[in-house]
């Protein structure tokens, strides 16, 4: 069964979605990710969705759910690289992912995560 890889980068977890998300895959990701956050005591999650070209309301909600779960487990989530078409679709669906932090690309996302974690430690 295909799986979305979760990479560890120091205190952060890196999730790159490079296949078409279907519902089962999203649920699997949600499970794997929460377990990994607890296992490695991650402080932040960077979700790169730049290859994601199609979203529906379910996937949209999964993204915000994952962010909410991560924040319950005390990890900040930053979603990066959203395609314009995906952004427009989500807004039209009424899902503006409030509470999810976003950045344009992985570099900016990492900078933002570092900033957030540093602010927490302060």
């Amino acid at each position: 069964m295909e799986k979305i890889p979760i990479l560890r980068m120091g205190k952060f977890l890196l999730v790159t979605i490079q296949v078409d998300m279907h519902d089962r895959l999203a649920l699997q990701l949600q499970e794997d990710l929460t377990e990994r956050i607890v296992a490695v005591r991650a402080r932040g999650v960077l979700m790169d969705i730049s290859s994601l070209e199609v979203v529906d309301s379910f996937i949209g909600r999964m993204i915000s759910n994952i962010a909410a779960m991560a924040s319950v487990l005390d990890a900040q989530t930053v979603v990066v690289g959203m395609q314009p078409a995906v952004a427009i679709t989500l807004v039209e669906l009424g899902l503006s992912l409030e509470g999810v932090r976003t950045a344009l690309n992985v570099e900016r996302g990492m900078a933002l995560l570092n900033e957030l974690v540093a602010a927490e430690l302060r």
Partner: protein
Amino acid sequence: MPSAAGQTVRTVLVKYEKEVLAEWIRLQLAATTLRGDLMKENELREQSRDLLSLLRPALESGRFESLESSDWTQVKEFLAGVSRTRGQQGFAPTETATFVLSLKQPIFDRLRNEIKDAQALADELWVATVVLDRLALFTTEQFLKTRETVIQSQQRELLELSTPVVELWESILALPLIGTLDSERTQVVMESLLQKIVETGAAIAIIDITGVPTVDTLVAQHLLKTVAAARLMGADCIISGIRPQIAQTIVHLGVDLSEVTTKASLADAFMIAMRRVQAKLPTGT
């Protein structure tokens, strides 16, 4: 199959083509609807001659009931061409229709000379009137179609012209909106803004609504949608250029803009954007 009605109209056109044409042109030149400023006399003569010569074979077919039959195709094509050029030259619809309608007088004159019987004359006049009226209506229709295509292409151009996204500074985009925001325009605005964000890697977009005449709930909703979409891409939005009246309407309508940074002028918005970008960007980029 040629019917009895319209027989004389045909004969008149065959027999007196030169006279009818001369008379027709004389009348057109004398008429008040003549637009010597838009069209040369030669062109008018040429058009009149061409129409008459096309009209003759079409009349010989004897089908006056409708212009749908293939006998009229050439006449229609010619008239469509005439009204298209006239539409572009700036003629009024009346002036264009008069081109065809003015043919009535010379033909009627000839018919009156040809036919002595009142009953037969009335029948022939009726046929001639029906045909010429249909042709005139067709011309007007074509004229309007030409105008409509012009309007449509202008609308398209306006849509593209009025949604420029400009880069003010590294990582700062400005989107000066001019004109009313409807759903279609919002879509275009949103798409071009998001595209530009991807291209330039901008972190802040300033949406300037100085040129938006009124803001109602729908426009506000469109604005908020654009802001939300930009945020999803990782760019912050600042709305600037809010005039006092618009601020009043927004509050009266109960639109919640508290999530969005708003500034009264573009200059203020630019200042705050500069500050934020410098704070955010790592040095060296």
